[in-house]
């Protein structure tokens, strides 16, 4: 059953888990999302165009699956229970207490963003996609990516404890 498509998919899993973790802000939910997305990708592998980017295709499937799941749960607005928010690797990668607090505040602030803003911020700031690549994944204009990114940062920056000035 193994073939190149499956092997490429396995190789992408760490990045997909990071993306899903940043959307759900919970590692277990993120893994469920990745598994569901991979199963969906395998069912629809005929739709993947050889020569195109598998990572972009998978990011789209993950974010679509996440939004579908959110709709099924009829969750609106802030969608993550603060008690379920996890600090990646339980914060042990961050050696100083203030460093851990900062990472915790990042995760909490991310969870508070509206879903479309969270997706864009994750694709650009965490996954390192260009605006054009993020727009392709989300099938929206580049201008929409920029406006969502701008609003996400306006909401996020004041909560990170790294702001050096007052709000505009």
């Amino acid at each position, binding site marked *: 059953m193994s073939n190149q498509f499956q092997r490429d998919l396995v190789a992408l899993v760490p990045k997909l888990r990071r993306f899903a973790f940043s959307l759900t802000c919970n590692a277990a939910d993120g893994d469920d999302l990745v*598994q569901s997305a*991979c199963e969906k990708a395998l069912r629809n592998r005929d739709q993947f165009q050889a020569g195109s980017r598998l990572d972009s295709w998978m990011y789209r499937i993950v974010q679509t699956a996440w939004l579908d799941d959110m709709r099924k749960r009829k969750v609106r607005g802030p969608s993550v229970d603060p008690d379920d928010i996890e600090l990646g*690797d*339980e914060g042990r990668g961050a050696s100083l207490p203030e460093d851990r607090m900062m990472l915790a505040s990042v*995760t909490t602030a991310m969870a508070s963003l509206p879903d479309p803003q969270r997706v864009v911020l994750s694709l650009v700031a965490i996954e390192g996609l260009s605006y054009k690549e993020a727009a392709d994944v989300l099938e929206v204009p580049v201008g929409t990516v920029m406006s969502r990114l701008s609003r996400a940062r306006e909401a996020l920056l004041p909560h990170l404890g*790294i702001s050096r000035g007052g709000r505009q």
Partner: protein
Amino acid sequence: MRTVMDKDHLAAFADGELSPEEAAKVVMHLADNPQDQAYVDELYAANEALARAFSAPLQEPVPEAIREAIMGKAATNVVFFRPKPKLALALGGLAASVAVAAVLLTGLSGGPQSTGIALGPLAAIDPVAGVLNTGVSGALVQLPDGRTSMVLATFGMPDGRYCREFEVVDIAGGRVDYAVGCRAGETWTIEATIAEAAVEDLGQGFVTASGDEANLLTQFLERGGAPVMLDAAAEADVISKGWSDR
């Protein structure tokens, strides 16, 4: 924060979206506008904080359930753990291809004593203790007896200790020993070892017979809860502190 230049343009600069010419103009603008520089710094810091906050999955093995969902159940004895810098692992069947079955896993299974790396505390003068004290993951160390050693990964354990997974390659003997050494007080103690036959792989180093040592050592490391693999910076930090900050 109020800025002189449009914030979206500054964000595009921070995100690497501008052409070299446009970016150069922004750089010159920032030199004269410290408040805009502060905003760009803030964007950089936010991007870095976001990347760090969600980076854990990049340092973890692919969960078995996800691998199984992709590759199918039959492939689950093929264990991808993490890149081993020097060894190319042959991914063959487990039982049929284990050439040297000297598996010693404390608390998991018994077996004959390996003659390569013995279980128990290491003497401070043992060269392997030196490797565990100061070796950086992925760096090859020549031992006085001609063998080579390399730390493969460093873990923070749920019980507060540090453990290091490492290999010792005996080229002359055609043997690779994998082991887990854990720090207790001032002493490293070998808690698990696996010995495998190694065959030369035409300039690619050595290939182990089964490739299953990662699976067994992972089981061992995870027996008391999920360990956290240290990244390079965290590992360097704890080495510099003499393994004393937990």
